[in-house]
């Protein structure tokens, strides 16, 4: 199919082209909802069956890091929305600035996630043969990043949970299966989103996006907001299970 300017050959008008692209992205996001839905169902069932283990697992996460990342992602959604707005009103320099900010915030998120993941590896909290929810409590010397009073509190919470669920270690592994499965898939979506943002940045630096034609910014924006919303669900599901005491 031949392309005339920004109009691809299979379409008659730019409006039709834009409507098609937007509808396509919305339908794609519906498939994403179903995709995350499967793992959220697995999470919900297991949390229902093994609440003490899930609460104990949740308490080993850092609320500070998770909360900080939530703020970062919300901010990135804001800058993305501003990038879309800039493209609609034709402020070409602003598009690039806001896209760059969105990318930067995305990378801040990755950085924090990297810190969290590497902690979990050091603390033997990755599902597998070496998984041990009591590792830090039993080997405080190997967990220098956890303060003494936090360890004390964690030890008490784990003892309570162990009393409620003798098979705590196996069931806490299920919690961490959910944690790594869900945050891993979310991070994968972020990586794809960051790639798309770089592609947009290239286009915006070349001055391609105008008030008449800015569909890519618009639909990548939809995708970015969706990934953000997934995190808005993941944060309470994973970090806030048992924080109300």
């Amino acid at each position, binding site marked *: 199919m031949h392309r005339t300017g920004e109009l691809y050959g299979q379409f008659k008008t730019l409006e039709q082209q834009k409507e098609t692209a937007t509808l396509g992205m919305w339908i794609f996001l519906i498939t994403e909802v179903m995709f995350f839905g499967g*793992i959220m169902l697995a999470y919900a069932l297991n949390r229902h069956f093994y609440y003490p283990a899930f609460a104990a697992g949740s308490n080993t996460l850092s609320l500070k890091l998770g909360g900080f990342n939530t703020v970062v992602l919300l901010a990135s959604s804001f800058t993305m929305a501003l990038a879309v707005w800039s493209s609609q009103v034709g402020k070409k320099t602003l598009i690039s600035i806001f896209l760059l900010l969105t990318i930067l915030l995305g990378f801040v998120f990755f950085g924090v996630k990297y810190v969290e993941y590497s902690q979990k590896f050091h603390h033997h909290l990755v599902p597998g043969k070496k998984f041990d929810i009591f590792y830090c409590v039993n080997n405080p010397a190997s967990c220098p990043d956890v303060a003494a009073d936090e360890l004390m509190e964690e030890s008490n919470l784990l003892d309570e949970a162990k009393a409620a669920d003798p098979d705590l270690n196996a069931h806490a592994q299920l919690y961490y299966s959910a944690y790594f499965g869900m945050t891993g898939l979310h991070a994968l979506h972020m990586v794809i989103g960051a790639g798309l943002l770089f592609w947009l940045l290239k286009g915006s630096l070349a001055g391609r996006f105008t008030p008449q034609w800015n569909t890519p910014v618009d639909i990548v924006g939809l995708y970015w907001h969706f990934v953000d919303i997934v995190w808005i669900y993941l944060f309470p599901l994973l970090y806030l299970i048992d924080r109300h005491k």
Partner: protein
Amino acid sequence: MSATAAAPVKTLPEHHYLNATYGIRSWLLTVDHKRIALLYLVSVTFFFFIGGFFAMLIRLHLLTPSGYLLSADTYNRMFTMHGVAMIFFFLIPSIPAVLGNFFIPLMIGAKDLAFPKINLLSWYVYVVGAAFTLYSMVSGGLDTGWTFYTPLSTIYSNSAVAPAVVGVFITGFSSILTGLNFLVTIHTMRAPGMTWFRLPMFVWAHYATSIVMILGTPVIAITLALAGMERLFGLGFFNPAMGGDPILFQHLFWFYSHPAVYIMILPAMGVISELIPTFARKQLFGYHFVAAASLAIAVIGFLVWTHHMFLTGQSTYAALAFSFLTFLVAIPSAVKTFNWVATLYGGSISFDTPMLYAFGFLGLFLIGGLTGLFLGCLGTDIHIHDTYFVVAHFHYIMVGGAIMGYLGGLHFWWPKMTGRMYPEWLARIAALILFVGFNLTFFPQFLLGYLGMPRRYHVYPPEFQVYNVMSTAGASILAIGYLLPMIYLTWAAFFGKVAGDNPWPATGLEWKTQSPPLTENFEVTPIVTWEPYDFHNRPDLGLDAVASNGVAPAHGDD
């Protein structure tokens, strides 16, 4: 078919999509939906013959009660790989990705699908998934059954499960992309005058199918991803040793895999809805009801999945509810069947090859559908669960229904796809061979199942031998029935008689352009001013002369 009196010698049009460009790159990098459909045609046919080869080995092995051909372990791998190849790599993409891809843009008067590059991407995704699965097949195969039940697949099986799971996972995205493309195309790419209720039933069927692909396939993707990560990295959702639940896998698996049956049968129903009005020369009876029935099947299909799990110990009340919902599927299915029959009533019926397949479909789908009710009924399901009755039932739907529809559609549209006609009498004989072979293969399996022969066993008690011999004999006839069309259709694509633009004639928009079509499908975007399947107000079809000769419907209109 009407006798066109002393037509001049027809020739192929000078320019069409097949001779627009040449060379291997022009095929592998094409974004033309018609060429991509042909790429799919070649790849799904390849998998059909792989799956057919495994089926033949299974049937040969079951000739004798003690099974002389394969070891028990090899037998497990054969039926697993038969299922995986046939379901994920043949049946699910067959009609949508080949016929749907080719004809949806033509039928709605568009130049291409909404996203041509994503269409090509979907084929490459299919090929990558297929490569993983082929790798699994040649590196020892897998023995879990096509259902990949955990914890067998995640912990205990020693076969090549991981590459097969990865392959099926990847191929799922090809299906998602196809469904997404169809949905958007049908919404935004229709030609002027092509209103929703002027859409051919084939397009309605694909609309419903796409909904199932969009909502179901992501769920199997996440399920297989979790099972795969469980096998590779030790995640524990489905592992009872860690407190996980294998039944959860079954729920998630069937949440997709039951609706997947409708991904296979709905497009076939769409084909039949095209064939019957064309060869009965009569408007489709109850157009709106047939369209709504497609959507109803797609929706209700999502609410019946635990009827595959009646014997897993689930709550009786849940089972009752799901049994009731399963019975509901019979209503839209029956609406369709009765409407097809009502279309035939008083029609001027001709017995061209596509119509023979449509008749085959009607009978076989009827048997397959009604035996589904036996299985959806809680009491009888306990007796026939996991027996050859189930095997026979779903082969009547998938082979008798879906493949009959696929072959009928291929014959019907072959003149449009290639510009050439297949040998009519050979094709009629092949259709007959197929019908006989199919029934001889699978009807005895109903009896075997009812008498208690379990599925997936490599040996059986000697008293079952006579039915098994019948079934194997039938499979041999069936194999000939499949080889014949493959040979003569390939031959016809190059050497067949030139067909002309509208050989049947049929009413759809795809017949208004040349055969084979231009790369852009139409010289100018058509404007639709007629109702679907309306043979009476279409002088362009050249049927007026026929009507005045008294070949018109014997019982008058409608």
